[in-house]
């Protein structure tokens, strides 16, 4: 277990670096640890480990590039639900986004309920059953360049579900919701524009269980 280390004017304190399954067996009140598998600080209050926060914890992310970007090792047993946040997105061509989990290319179901403002202000339901991917975000090229997706149970052996926005510039907006009809446990996902290439940033956050 690491203790403290000091480094001149830029002093640092290094807590014990452990995992959630290798916490100290005889901790003292006030002891700090950092768990590498949950990416959280925790302090011992005399009877239990108190985590740094109970909200969202960043578990991965980075800059998108090329025709497809895969985020590996982001889903785990530490979280059941995740927020996937895309920012500053820019596609080389007008495009929606496709998402796949692991190497699965079948069993994706999704439905968009969207209002189309430029065509008499009507609503429409679009989507697909048993598709090769989830498709969301409408038309990225003229949209606002970002999204917030919520995804539930990708790692658990349960059906994975999601909710994401649908937009087509200022022409339409709505939401997309759906599921992946299997109980496979996934640790990775891939995002790809429906055509061309995509840049921007995606960050993944886990909803802490406690």
């Amino acid at each position, binding site marked *: 277990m690491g203790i403290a280390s000091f480094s001149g004017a830029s002093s640092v304190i290094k807590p014990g670096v452990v995992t959630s399954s290798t916490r100290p067996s005889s901790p003292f009140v006030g002891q700090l640890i950092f768990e590498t598998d949950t990416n959280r600080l925790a302090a011992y209050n005399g009877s239990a480990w108190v985590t740094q926060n109970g909200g969202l914890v960043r578990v991965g992310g980075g800059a998108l590039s090329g025709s497809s970007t895969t985020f590996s090792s982001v889903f785990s047993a530490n979280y059941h639900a995740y927020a996937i946040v895309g920012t500053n997105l820019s596609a080389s061509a007008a495009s929606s986004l*496709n998402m796949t989990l692991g190497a699965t290319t079948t069993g994706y179901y999704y439905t968009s309920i969207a209002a*189309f403002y430029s065509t*008499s202000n*009507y609503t429409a339901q679009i989507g697909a059953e048993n598709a*090769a991917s989830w*498709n969301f975000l409408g038309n990225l090229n003229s949209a606002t360049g970002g999204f917030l997706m919520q995804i539930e149970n990708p790692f658990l052996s349960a059906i994975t579900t999601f909710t994401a926005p649908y937009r087509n510039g200022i022409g339409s907006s709505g939401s997309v919701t759906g599921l992946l009809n299997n109980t496979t446990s996934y640790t990775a996902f891939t995002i*790809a524009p*429906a055509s061309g290439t995509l840049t921007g940033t995606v960050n993944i956050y886990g909803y802490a269980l406690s």
Partner: protein
Amino acid sequence: MTKPMIRIIDGNQITDREMTDEEFSAYKIVQAENAAIEEAQAAALAAKAAVRQALLEKLGITEEEAQLLLGGN
């Protein structure tokens, strides 16, 4: 033949490379299916708009008048 580029992000490790045959095969499946879905959706939306326009003409009212009747903006 050059395959599309894929980025793999695993923690702080970033790898940019061409897709493998397996990845490219999956990529093509998704792209082809999505193109077909988008085409079908566009056709469905166009058909719905055409039906609506035909109904307006049958009723002899404008789009704005229909919106007023329906309470829309």
